[in-house]
């Protein structure tokens, strides 16, 4: 028995239908709009900062059963818009204009009690971080029970919950588990099952797969597509990840600086994006398997919305900008089967792009070409040589945990060997839990291997250092040669310390610099990572910098001791797609010019393809494939590598998709 057939809809809650006194004239093409957003504006008015209009005059509709994507960089107002629709904004944010109508009910005017009835039965949501949206002290079972009880669903709850879990491919056993006992992907599937528990008609997904690795993401997205097909709910899918959005959505809205700048069916968007911003976003994608891979990035940042923007808000970053763009504000106008907010495009003067990304956008700084990092050709011969600076030799790391009387041991890494050479990037690719980070910990001396050796030879000496035997002072000295770039630039810098302080520590500790020399050298470091003029950045606190700028500061700090080895643990995964290429370009340049040996840890094969000379694929602690990047990515031999490759969301596959 499938409890989720469309027939019994409305059995528990009387559903309001579109009333006759509502304006119906503008309902498009006979299909009723489930959600209508009319001129919605959201304003942040904090006490200590200027008033910001995060969402401005946004209007759109979602039809019954439609899958709509909402794309944009961080800080463009996507989540604010989502929370505005859900009426979940809390001060200092408030809806400052417009309305949201869900199936004839004006949500903007509804009181809390009314909303409480509508939420979850008509409109539900899955947030990005399911660890925080699930109650850590309740078993999964209890969380379902709570949801049903709150909406007075009494009968057959047990059977329904099992059915729900089956829908998201989870075993009923998870009901007895607490959230922390489940993996990130499982938790996110529980959250999805909870969101679907009362068969809502609209589900708002805010970055539901961000932070999960590709294979898990693929799994959840596939599940979502099937479920939507079976149950017929409408989706508003908010993400900065163009690949997933374009693959999943029927229609995509692109948001920039609080406005919708483009709105068109997904296949058309891939084929012929009309807004320069959309083109810029598309340019940050490429198929890692192609013989030649180019990605582009959009220089600059979204504008400060507390300042009135007279013209088009994208003008400062736009390669096609004309004089008029800076003065006249474009309207969102119908154009070629969609809507676009661009003066140049509306006049039909935007150059056409060939299908696909990169190459058609010479106007954005193309990363591999510009940096001389084009990996399409065979590797330059002089880079192939060079003695390894670090050797990992048949290393195994076993973790033993004791629970009660039983001891269980897990091999995080089994018999892995690798070599890091100066001027070369070695990528370590695999899902979370594959042992990538364990290898990084072994290389940095944080952990010791259970068996095997880690040997380091400094460039200016011939003596080998056994990293796996270092302790205390010797370990501290070794760290001078091995530095790290962290995944999350927001937690890698102390929020209470200035950039200058962060950079001064390694200089004082390893180079013995004192007084003004420290500041001078710190400024040089900042300029070497592209933060110029450095004086402007030295006294800033991390929160005053953007994500990309912070990652540059983190990189500068790692360079300060003049290390031989740089370990980059997912350095771009927390950054916006539009600037990932920028950071990768910087890292690539530093490796080549400073002859660094880099261990690049990632689950993202595209970035590995762009940056690395050599790729190692790890699966559950085993090295399953190893070789030059182009060989591994282009002609994967191992099933697991192929799985990783197939899991990458590919926006350009949407163009090939029927419909």
């Amino acid at each position: 028995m499938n409890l989720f057939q469309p027939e019994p809809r409305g059995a528990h809650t009387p559903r309001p239908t579109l009333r006759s006194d509502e304006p119906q004239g503008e309902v498009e093409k006979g299909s009723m709009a489930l959600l209508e957003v009319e001129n919605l504006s959201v304003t942040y008015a904090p006490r200590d900062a200027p008033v910001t209009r995060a969402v401005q005059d946004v209007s759109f509709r979602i039809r019954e059963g439609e899958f709509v994507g909402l794309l944009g960089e961080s800080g463009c107002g996507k989540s604010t818009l989502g929370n505005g629709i859900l009426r979940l904004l809390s001060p200092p944010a408030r809806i400052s204009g417009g309305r949201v109508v869900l199936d004839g009910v004006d949500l903007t005017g509804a009181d809390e009690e009314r909303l409480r009835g509508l939420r979850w039965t008509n409109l539900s949501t899955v947030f990005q971080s399911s660890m925080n949206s699930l109650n850590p002290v309740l078993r999964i079972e209890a969380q379902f029970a709570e949801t049903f009880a709150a909406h007075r669903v009494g009968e057959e709850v047990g059977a329904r919950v099992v059915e729900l879990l089956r829908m998201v491919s989870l075993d009923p056993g998870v009901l007895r588990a607490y959230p922390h006992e489940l993996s990130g992907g499982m938790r996110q599937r529980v959250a999805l099952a909870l969101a679907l528990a009362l068969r809502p008609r609209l589900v708002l997904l805010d970055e539901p797969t961000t932070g999960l690795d590709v294979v898990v993401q693929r799994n959840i997205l596939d599940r979502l597509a099937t479920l939507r097909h079976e149950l017929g709910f409408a989706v508003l899918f908010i993400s900065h990840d163009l690949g997933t959005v374009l693959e999943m959505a029927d229609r995509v809205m692109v948001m920039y600086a609080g406005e919708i700048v483009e709105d068109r069916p997904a296949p058309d968007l891939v084929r012929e994006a009309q807004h320069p911003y959309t083109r810029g976003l598309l340019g940050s994608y490429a198929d890692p398997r192609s013989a030649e891979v180019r990605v582009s990035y959009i220089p600059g940042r979204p504008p400060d919305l507390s300042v009135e923007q007279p013209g088009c808000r994208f003008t400062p970053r736009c390669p096609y900008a004309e004089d008029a763009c800076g003065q006249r504000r474009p309207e969102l106008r119908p154009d070629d089967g969609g809507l676009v907010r661009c003066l140049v495009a509306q006049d039909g003067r935007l150059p056409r792009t060939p299908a696909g990304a990169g190459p058609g956008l010479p106007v954005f700084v193309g990363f591999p070409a510009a940096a001389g990092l084009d990996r399409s050709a065979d590797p330059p011969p002089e880079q192939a040589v060079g003695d390894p600076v670090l050797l990992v030799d048949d290393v195994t790391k076993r973790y033993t945990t004791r629970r009660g009387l039983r001891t269980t041991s897990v091999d995080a890494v089994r018999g892995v060997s690798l070599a890091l050479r100066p001027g070369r990037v070695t990528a370590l690719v695999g899902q979370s839990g594959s042992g990538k980070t364990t290898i990084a910990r072994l290389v940095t001396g944080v952990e010791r291997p259970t068996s095997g050796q880690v040997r380091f030879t400094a460039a200016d000496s011939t003596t080998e250092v056994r990293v796996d035997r270092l302790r205390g002072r010797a370990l501290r000295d070794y760290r001078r040669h091995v530095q790290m770039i962290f995944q999350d630039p927001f937690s890698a810098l102390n929020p209470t310390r200035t950039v200058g302080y962060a950079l001064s520590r390694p200089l004082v500790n390893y180079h013995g610099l004192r007084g003004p020399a420290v500041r001078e050298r710190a400024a040089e470091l900042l300029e070497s990572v592209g933060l110029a003029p450095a004086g402007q950045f030295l006294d800033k606190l991390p929160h005053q910098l953007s994500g990309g700028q912070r990652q540059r500061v983190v990189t500068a700090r790692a360079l300060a001791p003049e290390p031989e080895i740089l370990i980059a643990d997912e350095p771009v995964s927390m950054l916006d797609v539009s600037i990932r290429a920028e950071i990768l370009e910087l890292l690539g340049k530093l490796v080549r010019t400073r002859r660094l040996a880099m261990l690049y840890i990632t689950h993202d094969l595209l970035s590995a393809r762009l940056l690395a000379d050599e790729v190692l694929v790890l699966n559950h602690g085993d090295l399953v494939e190893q070789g030059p990047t182009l060989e591994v990515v282009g002609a994967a031999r191992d099933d697991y590598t192929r799985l990783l490759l197939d899991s990458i969301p590919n926006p350009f596959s949407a163009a090939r998709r029927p419909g």
Partner: protein
Amino acid sequence: MSTPVPAVRAPGADTEAVQVATRVLGRGTRLPGWFVILWRNGKCRLGLLMLAGFVLVAIFAPVIGRYDPRDDDFDTSAGPSAAHWLGTTALGEDVFAQLVFGARTSLVVGIAAGLLCTVIGLVVGLTAGYLGGWLDEVLSFFINLGLVVPALPLMVTLAAYSPVRGLTLIILVISVTGWAYGARIKRSQIITLRTRDYITAARFAGDRTARIIAHEIVPNMTSLIVVGFMGAALGAIGGEAGLAFLGLGDPQTVSWGTMLNQASLGGALLSGQWAWLIAPGAALALLITSFTLINFGIDALSNPHLRED
């Protein structure tokens, strides 16, 4: 705001945000940022004004009090009059002068014991939380012991059997019984902070443990330390009054607790000297109220959402 930052951060992240906010707010004015936040809160402002009043009274006690609180040359057990606003004690001392000088004792005990509690709590909490392992086990045992043992009976016992009497003893007794709560909070805070990437980064930058704690961790928990100090000071003032009322205070010092003790022994209730009985209690209640009001503001300091209204 959605993309790279996890939607909700661990509770520890909040205290980091507080430090940033206080730095930013302080920039426009000469006042420190934390003061701006406190002052903007109506309840907190009232509390600050009340506390300032007590501090002024304590500082200018000889001027305001007019008489020496130990001077017993006046009529005994007199009612309020123009010469003695709140009357005199059974020994012939001026009640008003005692009240005014009592503010000194309460504030000194509050500040000293509050500081001592905070320092002990900080040292124990930071050591246990940062180093972990068996040291954490041992220190946590003592923290738990300190939390479980009822404070007042322990204070009474310590004060009653100690060979010396004096304000220092009172302060020590209160600190020894009151540090555990702060230590526990600081320990859990440092456990969330020490796994931050910037701590690892500092280790990679070659910093030593002591420096990491002092320069990377402590600045991120100042608001917590301030809250801890306020709580400890509040408890200390009450604790001193309690001990003194039970007759275990320092006989040489005038405090509101000893005043209550004397009023009770001197038969204030029988002789109808309401002022003598009520004044020290009311002063104590007002001082504690002022601390409580200030704590409303400190809540806003540690929770940015409370600052918006």
